[in-house]
């Protein structure tokens, strides 16, 4: 209905291969970007920005990272939290070691470290598959969170055992640390996330993306067309962990402002995994939708009783929240195992063929 593709014809492969070949999609994306970059910063309250929008972006990025590994390459990982942690601690070390280097540069480059660690724990992926591999990543998760506690050097031996984000500014504006204004932090996060999403989509739509998906869909056939399974899987691990690492760094530096080992425990890994599954394996949009759902739902649930003027004990709400999230996860897996992304696709298809059913 909204999609009127009549008259949209392609005279070049560049146009035909474009990520958004349909005009209406391009318009849609443009609108979203305008809203994200201009409208929200102007309208949203500090609370919304710093405890809804920023985390949403951070988790979306982590979800994209995990999606590259699990959704596009078909390798289950339970180590996301750990890899995020590596990013965070690396960034902390970097910023404290080189106070005057631009913090944004450091945030992004801290991904390199988690990438390295990711590859290290990806090494077994040649021999082992499926749940067995999940265990390998679980090893990574527990080993890393152990490191975050035991290796005092990581948090510069401070007594609290936590990492405190130092104030760093860019063009004279504080963008990290307690003094940084939420909107600034939001915008910085947004820029990084958008840029990295763009890169991810580039990779996925090109040769590398096809290699990943080939490995995922039918590794035998992939090998047959000359794809080196091992290298491809490791590359996926590297890129995936890089994204998670940066997400971790963002989480500490632009969202929480401080963190300790616990921020990167197994629960974090599961949280991101949920986002990917609910959002839809093998879909970038899904990563965002999933993050929004998993992160947004509890917030709404917490708000709900007050909204309906009920006074329920906080603990009870907490418990109900667990139940509802759990139930919803199952519900979603039942109604649409391919996640929100698929729902979106179906909806879009319906609009394209409207008024016909097919």
């Amino acid at each position, binding site marked *: 209905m909204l999609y009127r593709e009549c008259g949209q014809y392609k005279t070049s492969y560049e146009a035909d291969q474009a990520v958004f070949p349909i005009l209406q999609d391009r318009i849609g994306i443009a609108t979203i970007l305008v809203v994200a970059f201009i409208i929200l910063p102007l309208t949203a309250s500090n609370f919304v920005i710093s405890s809804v929008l920023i985390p949403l972006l951070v988790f979306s990025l982590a979800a994209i990272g995990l999606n590259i590994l699990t959704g596009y390459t078909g390798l289950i990982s339970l180590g996301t939290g750990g890899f995020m942690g590596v990013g965070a601690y690396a960034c902390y070390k970097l910023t404290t070691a080189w106070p005057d280097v631009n913090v944004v540069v450091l945030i992004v480059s801290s991904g390199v470290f988690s990438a390295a660690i990711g590859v290290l724990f990806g090494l077994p992926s040649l*021999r*082992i598959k499926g749940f067995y591999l999940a*265990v390998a990543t679980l*090893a990574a998760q527990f080993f890393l969170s*152990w490191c975050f506690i035991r290796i005092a050097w990581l948090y510069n031996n401070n007594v609290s055992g936590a990492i405190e984000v130092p104030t760093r500014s860019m063009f004279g504006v504080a963008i990290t640390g307690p003094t940084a204004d939420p909107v600034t932090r939001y915008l910085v996060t947004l820029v990084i996330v958008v840029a990295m999403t763009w890169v991810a989509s580039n990779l996925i739509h090109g040769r590398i993306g096809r290699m990943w998906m080939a490995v995922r869909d039918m590794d035998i056939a992939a090998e047959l067309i000359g794809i080196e399974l091992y290298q491809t899987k490791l590359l996926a691990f590297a890129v995936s962990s890089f994204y998670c690492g940066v997400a971790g760094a963002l989480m500490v530096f632009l969202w929480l402002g401080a963190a300790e080992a616990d921020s990167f425990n197994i629960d974090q890994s599961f949280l991101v995994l949920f986002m990917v599954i609910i959002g839809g394996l093998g879909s970038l949009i899904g990563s965002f939708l999933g993050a929004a759902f998993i992160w947004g739902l509890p917030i709404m649930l917490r708000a709900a009783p007050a909204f309906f003027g009920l006074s329920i004990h906080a603990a009870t709400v907490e*418990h109900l929240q*667990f*139940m509802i999230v759990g139930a919803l*996860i199952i519900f979603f897996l039942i109604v649409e*195992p391919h996640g929100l992304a698929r729902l979106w696709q179906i909806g879009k298809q319906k609009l394209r063929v409207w008024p016909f059913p097919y």
Partner: protein
Amino acid sequence: MEILYKILIDPFVQMVAAPDLLAQVVWEGLVGGVLYALIALGFVLIFKASGVFNFAQGIMVVFAAMTLVGVYEILRGFGVYPTDLAAYLALALTFCVMLVLAVAVERLVLRPLVNQPDIILFMATFGLTYFLIGFGELLFGGNPKVMIAEQLHLPRGAIELKILGGFVSLQKVDIAAAVVASIMVIMLAVFFQSTRIGRALRAVADSHKAALSVGISLEQIWVIVWFAAGVVAVITGIMWGARSQVEFSLQVIALKALPVLILGGFTSIPGAVVGGVVIGVGEKLGEFYWGPLIGSGIESWLAYVIALLFLLFRPQGLFGEKIIERV
């Protein structure tokens, strides 16, 4: 050189120096291992029969324990007396609850998700975990409870063995746990080997048609295995609860079962046991003798690393069937 010595030689020297201590550590590990094995057992049962990797096994243990204690308290509240009667009544009721749970899971989760890829079912059990945590806490409150060990007439106190030129103390509860575990394993083995249903369950692992030919519907089989897993969970809950206290954070021990499964193979009951023991002992030894070298707490990951290294050499586990890739 120095460090190499510390790693390669020193620990063994210590072991020889104080064999009683070694024995103690091994025993501790053994007991821990038994409990791991019990949880792994739950996994294996379900994985064998329905190919589902049941992450919820951990929470089922806690839930079972919580229910047991909770129901007991309620019964006491109604003034059921004597206490042991209440306790056993509670136990019976708990089994019923687990049966209900099994049925519910089959109806509400497994049946709608039949023929979905493993990862999806895996995630579903996550959802289940979340739900049970919330549900359990809602019913029994978030704070820890004490297992009704004595009401169930579990032995208490310890046996002091004077051996190896020193003392080795064995908690009676632990012995009981070991015994119960072994009994249960044997029962299950018998069940699988020589009952019709057992054979059916084994068949399911290979092909669903085979199972139907035995005359049992897939649904029934699922209910049965989940109930069996539930029973195992109750036992595990009691044993674990008797050693420490019953709290929801316990559910992470489910993750401990993973390396055990890796060692034992996802489909082998004896494997689960052996794996459990190996991990348990290995963990304790590592923690006790090597831990200090690199800051303690290595328990938390040692098991996984052991499993991982093991994987690289034998991907299908100790007792798992060899996987041949057909093209």
